[in-house]
């Protein structure tokens, strides 16, 4: 499964279909697979993906809109003469169960300009905001709900 994905990636990246090159591709895919399996045997660190692809796509669209809005406000701060910065470091609780869900939430916070996840704790993120206002908590809670939906709906 992983090997087939890697091989598809090779074909897409090279775009050449000569037997020699495909042979090289197969060989390197096999070597990588062998090394990875050895590494897996060593640390046993596994990532199980429990996401529903459809909801993830929907979430990404929503995130894009959110990023556009956030960019607009940060742009106004940067371009204005006085730069009305209102910095604040605050806690945001998260409700995702898996590591991957938490990573998605933390990265979404950082990806929207104006807020950055600074530290992860047991059930909170420390978030730094450039232009903090009281609605931010609510907006982040909304994002948290949406990420949690993406996560729990899957279970494949």
């Amino acid at each position, binding site marked *: 499964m992983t090997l087939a994905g890697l091989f598809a990636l090779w074909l897409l990246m090279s775009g050449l279909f000569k037997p020699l090159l495909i042979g090289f591709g197969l060989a390197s895919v096999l070597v990588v697979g062998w090394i990875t399996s050895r590494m897996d045997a060593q640390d046993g660190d596994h990532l199980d993906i429990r996401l529903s692809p459809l909801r993830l796509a929907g979430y990404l669209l929503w995130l894009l809109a959110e990023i556009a809005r956030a960019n607009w406000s940060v742009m106004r701060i940067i371009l204005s003469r006085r*730069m009305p910065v209102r910095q604040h470091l605050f806690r945001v609780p998260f409700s995702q169960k898996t590591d991957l869900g938490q990573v998605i939430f933390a990265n979404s916070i950082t990806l929207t300009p104006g807020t950055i996840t600074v530290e992860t704790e047991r059930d909170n993120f420390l978030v730094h905001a450039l232009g*903090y206002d009281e609605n931010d908590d609510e907006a982040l809670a909304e994002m948290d709900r949406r990420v949690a939906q993406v996560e729990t709906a899957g279970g494949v």
Partner: protein
Amino acid sequence: MNAVDVFLEVLSWALIVSGSVFVIIGSLGLWRLPDFWARLHGASVTESAGVILLIWGMCIQAGFTLITVKLIIIGIFLFITGPTATHAVANAALVTGWRPSEAEGLTGAEPEPLRPENEDDALDGGEE
């Protein structure tokens, strides 16, 4: 040139030009904003809006080819690693005991002290 082509051309123009504008704004932010914690946000404008818009614009220009595939792979990669790198910078600054200055009337949350497992990480990391 039919209507679809014209539309795509105009769309990619708009995407690339606005992406360029956001890239410049982001770096301006990196230059103008008062301190490090604020500058983080300036850099993240480049990393989110600039990257997304420029990559989309280039994808539309490239059409339906392997180049688009490569662009999308680059885009996805930047989309994932950009915020991770920003987080790592901020986290390193916080862990070394540096706190952002707070706006008037707000008190910042104090991070919890390092957990034991983090301490193990610290020991391993130092051994490298």
